[in-house]
């Protein structure tokens, strides 16, 4: 199985690529762009190799393609990589969305005097860190990248963002995440002390489960706080509208589309198997937070006047659904939650990119600056509507499947929660349709005619980068089975911990590859 160190390559290639691109002189902007795109292409190819070699059967080892290299022996900190079905989906999302985001930002920097190589190098560094968090199978290694990824994102928002509040947004993002991360650090150390110096995820999961009680509860809270801020769940969400509103649209697509999924991914990967009793104990609270998040964020989204902030708020509502799906602990809802992470990445990524096209043309993200824009931009408006409808989970688009699974699973677990969350769908229809109506339809805003760019519909490059997302959203909307097949074994394994039957786990693959 381990002929090629594919997972190491997935982290190393973008990292090395980032260094190479960063060393390109800023006059050679085109060289930097193409190099970065090529690197992300290589990452996509490696991801495809992993996906093709992955064993999708139910009795396959939980983590596959495992690699381990000793790093700091005294701390049991090893470069251990491994991938399960959930991680595979998110790795694929990262690998797919990054080149698209790069293409989307291709012309963003033409007008400003910022270093183009640095921008693309930061995106590659971000990609490396995000991939590493999905692939790490060592708790401390995960923490390393979980924190390190703040640095590139901080500069992407603060240095390349738009709007007067970009510095504020960058600092807020960084501090919020860092504070969460530091509390997680205490819990990480606590886990290490309790386990007798073990950080290896496979060893921890295979060991006797931790006894229920206050220690487990505190450790859970330490991890969960970091993940809830990262996701973000209500009421830890306030950094996201600022960050999403200030980041360049392509970066916002990566921020909301991929980076935020690390929070929910990590809940599945770390909180549930390591602290199952505490997860059960706090589940009602988390579900409560999630339901409030679904409704609250949807209401706030309706009232937004800025397109990017609006999309950010819709995402907070969607993360509420993911939270409900995970913490309802049914196979359907948890599978739905994982699919939701993937599909939301596609739909919101597309939405952010389209909003980016619009704001680049108009020079503003304010809804009031638009109105009747569809007249001159019919294709762009169409894609915008499509992305919006996907985001509200119209049947036939991929997000529908995931939302349906989440609600279906939640209904078997807790009917009032499912009913309340369903209200969120109605609200979603409201904010998406109002957003489309106020920007694209109705009386044409006369100011639009004075902006020549508003007459230019999608260019070839823009069509080319939107097409794969549209195809994926439609394709997985009609035929989601491959995704479900990939995810279900890992979800089942995770849920065994909740039911206390983790002894039935498929035997872990031996830690090999010294």
């Amino acid at each position: 199985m381990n002929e090629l160190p594919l997972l190491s390559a997935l982290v190393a290639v973008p990292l090395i690529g980032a260094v190479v691109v960063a060393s390109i002189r800023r006059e050679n902007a085109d060289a930097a762009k193409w190099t970065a795109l090529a690197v992300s292409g290589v990452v996509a190819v490696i991801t495809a190799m992993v996906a093709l070699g992955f064993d999708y059967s139910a009795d396959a080892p939980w983590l596959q393609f495992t690699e381990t290299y000793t790093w700091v022996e005294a701390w049991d900190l090893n470069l251990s990589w491994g991938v399960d079905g959930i991680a595979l989906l998110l790795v694929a999302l990262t690998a797919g969305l990054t080149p698209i985001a790069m293409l989307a930002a291709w012309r963003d920097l033409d007008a400003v005097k910022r270093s183009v190589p640095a921008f693309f190098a930061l995106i590659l560094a971000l990609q490396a860190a995000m991939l590493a968090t999905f692939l790490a199978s060592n708790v401390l290694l995960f923490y390393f990248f979980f924190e390190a990824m703040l640095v590139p994102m901080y500069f992407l928002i603060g240095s390349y963002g738009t709007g007067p509040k970009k510095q504020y947004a960058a600092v807020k993002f960084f501090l919020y995440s860092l504070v969460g991360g530091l509390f997680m650090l205490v819990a990480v150390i606590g886990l290490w002390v309790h386990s007798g110096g073990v950080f290896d995820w496979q060893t921890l999961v295979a060991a006797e489960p931790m006894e229920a009680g206050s220690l487990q509860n505190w450790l859970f809270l330490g991890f969960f706080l970091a993940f809830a801020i990262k996701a973000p769940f209500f009421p830890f969400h306030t950094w996201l509208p600022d960050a999403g509103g200030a980041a360049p649209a392509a970066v916002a697509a990566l921020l909301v589309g991929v980076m935020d999924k690390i929070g929910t991914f990590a809940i599945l990967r770390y909180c549930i198997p390591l602290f199952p009793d505490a997860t059960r104990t706090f589940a009602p609270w988390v579900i409560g937070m999630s339901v409030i998040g679904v409704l609250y964020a949807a209401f706030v989204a309706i009232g937004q006047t800025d397109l990017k902030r609006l999309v950010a708020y819709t995402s907070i509502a969607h993360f509420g659904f993911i939270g409900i799906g995970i913490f309802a602990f049914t196979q359907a809802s948890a599978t739905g939650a994982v699919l939701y992470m993937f599909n939301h990445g596609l739909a919101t990524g597309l939405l952010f990119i389209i909003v980016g096209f619009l704001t680049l043309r108009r020079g503003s993200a304010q809804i009031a600056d638009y109105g009747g824009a569809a007249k001159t931009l019919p294709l762009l408006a169409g894609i915008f509507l499509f992305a919006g409808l996907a985001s509200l989970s119209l049947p036939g688009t991929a997000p529908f499947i995931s939302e349906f699974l989440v609600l279906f699973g939640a209904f078997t677990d807790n009917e009032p929660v499912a009913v309340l969350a369903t209200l969120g769908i109605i609200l979603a229809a409201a904010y998406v349709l109002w957003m489309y109506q106020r920007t694209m339809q109705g009386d044409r805003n006369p100011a639009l005619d004075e902006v020549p760019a508003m007459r230019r519909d999608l260019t070839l490059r823009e069509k080319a980068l939107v097409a794969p997302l549209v195809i994926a959203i439609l394709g997985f909307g009609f035929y989601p089975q491959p995704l479900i097949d990939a995810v279900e074994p890992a979800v089942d394994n995770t849920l065994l911990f909740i039911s206390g039957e983790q002894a039935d786990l498929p035997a872990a693959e031996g830690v090999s590859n010294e």
Partner: protein
Amino acid sequence: MNEVQIDWAGLAPMIIVFAAAFGGLLVEATVPRARRLAVQAGLAVAALLAAFTAVVLIHDKSSAAFSIEGTGLGSVVLDGPGLFLQGTIALLSVVAVLLLAERRTTRGGDFVAEAAVVADSAADKAQQREDGATEIFPLTLFAVVGMMMFVVAGDLLTMFVALEMLSLPLYLLCGLAKRRRLISQEAALKYFLLGAFASAFYVYGMAMLYGFAGTVDLAGINQAGIASNQPRLLLYIGVAMIAVAMLFKAAAVPFHMWTPDVYTGAPTPVTALMAACVKVAAFGGLLRVFNVGLESSAWDWRMILMVIAIATMLGGAIFAVTQRNIKRLLAYSSIANAGYLLIGVIALGDAVGSTMFYLAAYGFTVIAAFAVVSLVRDGDEEATHLSRWAGLGKKSPGTAAVFTILMLALAGLPFTSGFTAKFGLFAAALGAGEVGLVVVGVVSSAILAFPYLRVVVLLWLNEPAPDAPTVNLPSPMAGAVVAAGVAATLILGVAPGFLIDIADQASTFLNT
């Protein structure tokens, strides 16, 4: 007669530096002025490197330096922690000496030629263009010997001699800045007066402990903690007084008041020396006193030391938030770091290794940070006000990138030594059951991240002022210091294994 056997090899590191310090005095008298800088700096670096080599050669020694018929005398104890810290001090001082020798950043260097000339007088104006005094090198070496002795002193009396020996040259060095001489002299006076008070406390505490234990030997005091039938009040007062003196040197709240003023007023290379090497020495002494001398009475002092640690962590962090001057910011950050290190002292035995690792890691980072500060100049003066640093990333991206790495390291981001050091320290403390202190440490780190991040924001995200300061490059010495500090920060962040192992192996005090 009982003859005292002397372990010359074990004393070699200190003897080498001591001899070099005296040699430096002779150089002042004999070598022509134009060549003194090269000779003095070369001598100092060579001596410190030789001392470091000598430490490495005797690294697994664990015995008293003086003994009578095989029975060790407690005065100088060569054991793992002592030697590790001696080595750390020697290496850090090499870097600090390079910074002292920098003459390119401003004409003639940061040091005044003749300190006795009245500040701002005509003669003072005239000597602004002259090269700085080279006596700073022997002075530094004397201070370094004091520090190296401080960390291996096995009785309170030797420790006091070492304390004075490291302090007196530093008082002097603080007053030798060429620019803003009045502030520099004020810093020296303040440091001297408060330091003298601290020394007085120390002597008084020593007397109390002698009254309690009948000995000044640390191991003997530890025995007395169990066996003595003297009033326990003597022990309490003695411990309190000694702790005051040592916490003063370590800059713990509420004995920290001098730190920001002295750090700001002293010439930046001296500040770097204090922030890195003196911190190592002070905590080396604290570790030894509490682990060897006062372990048996741990329950008597734990509570009060915990309060001080908490006050130091939170106080340092909160005051750092309000600072507008980069040197004061680093001063308060050094106070907060003293708080984290105190956790290591309180956690006793298990945390010795990680505390020492922290000292080494922090020392390199902070020296590099002060070296960068000394490079950013408004004309002849350092541009220490933070607003002047705005937009440095546009004009001098290299310097700004380096300083960003250092700030992120101080904030404890992974892949820097700041993270590995904090992780090791907090892990050891949690293992020893100090949950509350670790949580406060984390809260303090979170608060402290804000001022560091604000510096990063200033560097990269703000527009530079039209008369923004210049970065004086190339400044070979300061450049080398920055390079060494950043390299250590990254290496200890990415591959800390070797130093962790060394520190862990060296973490057992000789307890006789």
